[in-house]
């Protein structure tokens, strides 16, 4: 066995045996990939079992690397796994399927085993410093602040707003809505001087060196501009800044990270924002995986929805929502768009059962696949920040 694989197996063996020996597969039914494929090789359990086989010299990463594409990094399996949920805090040892999947992908890349879509995506990202979210149209540094045209936002300052690639180039009305709302509340913030992709997607697809390089650039840029606080509207960035960056920089990481949804709920609570324009829609809320499951943030989005007059809100049990996913995360749509589409259809089907006309999300990355699936059922997919902006009477 090559050395890196040996070291990998050593590092992950305990976690793998912990899962292998219990083998209860509670994780299986909440996994969005399993729900639509029933392929056991793509189950969280298999992802752990492979490590056991790797340690025994039965297989190499090249044999299984393609299986590890089939994960959106939603974290449902971790939360449903009794090893996390019922004993994880007690032993300080929880199931880390998401980290494991990332680590296997990283190991594959380090061994020269690439997935074609991911390789191309990361190559383009490296060249342009941003993800190629507009297919053929190049996105780059020169256009990264275009979304803010006419908003008159300063550059730098103590607090800045970080806008992910999808929102900066494709879903521009989301950051515009956020900026208008914050201005309305009198909350001061600026933009980054030179904003690169957060590096999170590269890390998720196994391109670790690139991810670290991008992170270092952003941190240096913040420091140079005197930034102390970074506002984040995208749940994926939120994960990157609160899980990847701390891992890279350790004690030197002195930046405060604030999730915009939480900030907005606070501003409403304090009376600094009062939604007053009625929005006549019947909605349900899609908990983005990276907020609900991976961070435990589910109250604030609901607080915001309940503050909007005119809305009829059909909520579902947020524990049940642990098994919902748009399929848009973890690089899945880059490598397997058809699987993402199936997962989205599955999600929208659940919304349709509630008789709603609108599915509200709070994650720019979920909106493309969900909207696509929503069209087939005449369900609008709307972003929470935009909905709030509408009710506050500030057009994007």
């Amino acid at each position, binding site marked *: 066995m090559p050395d890196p694989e040996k070291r990998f197996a050593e590092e992950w063996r305990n976690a793998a045996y912990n899962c292998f020996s219990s083998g209860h597969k509670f994780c299986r039914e909440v996994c969005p990939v399993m729900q639509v494929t029933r392929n056991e090789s793509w189950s969280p359990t298999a992802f752990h079992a492979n490590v056991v086989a790797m340690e025994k010299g039965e297989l190499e990463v090249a044999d299984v690397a393609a299986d590890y594409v089939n994960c959106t990094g939603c974290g449902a399996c971790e939360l449903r796994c009794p090893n996390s949920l019922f004993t*994880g805090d007690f*032993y300080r040892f929880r199931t880390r399927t998401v980290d494991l999947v990332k680590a296997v992908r990283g190991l594959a890349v380090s061994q020269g085993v690439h997935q074609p879509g991911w390789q191309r995506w990361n190559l383009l990202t490296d060249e342009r410093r941003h993800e190629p979210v507009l297919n053929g149209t190049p996105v780059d540094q020169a256009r990264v602040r275009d979304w803010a045209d006419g908003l008159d936002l300063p550059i730098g300052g103590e607090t800045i707003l970080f806008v992910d690639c999808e929102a900066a180039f494709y879903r521009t009305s989301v950051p515009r809505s956020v900026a208008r709302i914050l201005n309305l509340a009198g909350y001061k913030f600026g933009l980054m001087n030179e904003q690169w992709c957060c590096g999170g997607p590269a890390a998720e697809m196994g391109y670790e060196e690139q991810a670290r390089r991008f992170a270092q650039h952003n941190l240096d840029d913040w420091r140079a501009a005197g930034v102390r606080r970074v506002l984040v509207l995208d749940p994926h960035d939120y994960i990157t800044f*609160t899980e990847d960056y701390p891992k890279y920089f350790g004690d030197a990481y002195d930046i405060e990270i*604030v999730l915009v949804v939480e900030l907005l709920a606070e501003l409403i609570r304090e009376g600094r924002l009062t939604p007053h324009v009625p929005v006549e829609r019947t909605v349900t809320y899609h908990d983005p995986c990276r907020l609900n499951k991976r961070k435990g*943030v589910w109250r604030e989005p609901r607080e915001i929805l309940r503050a909007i007059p005119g809305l009829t809100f059909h909520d579902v049990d947020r524990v049940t929502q642990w098994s919902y996913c748009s399929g848009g995360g973890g690089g899945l749509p880059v490598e397997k768009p058809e699987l993402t589409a199936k997962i989205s259809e599955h999600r929208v089907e659940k919304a349709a059962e509630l008789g709603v006309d609108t599915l509200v999300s709070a994650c720019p990355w979920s909106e493309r696949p969900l909207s696509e699936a929503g069209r087939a059922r005449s369900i609008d997919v709307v972003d929470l920040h935009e909905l709030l902006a509408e009710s506050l009477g500030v057009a994007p």
Partner: protein
Amino acid sequence: MKYRYQEEMSPPPPQRVTDVAITRFEHVFEVEPGLMTDHVTQQTFPNWDTLRLVRSRADHLAWMHRHFADKVISGEELLHDLDE
């Protein structure tokens, strides 16, 4: 939730509960870290992670009770049913 590395990585000081358990957050118990150094070493947990698990567990149990248990049956009643 505002994330600050220093705050998340500084857990409240442990209080000993028994020889094998400590507590850092109210009603949250942990294995004495000294006992987890040989075979399975503890992971680095930021504070939010511990609290997320605890809260999710409470939510999950409440959900279970809402869905699977709508009345409480005593052991005596069960035995009585069997006898009939």
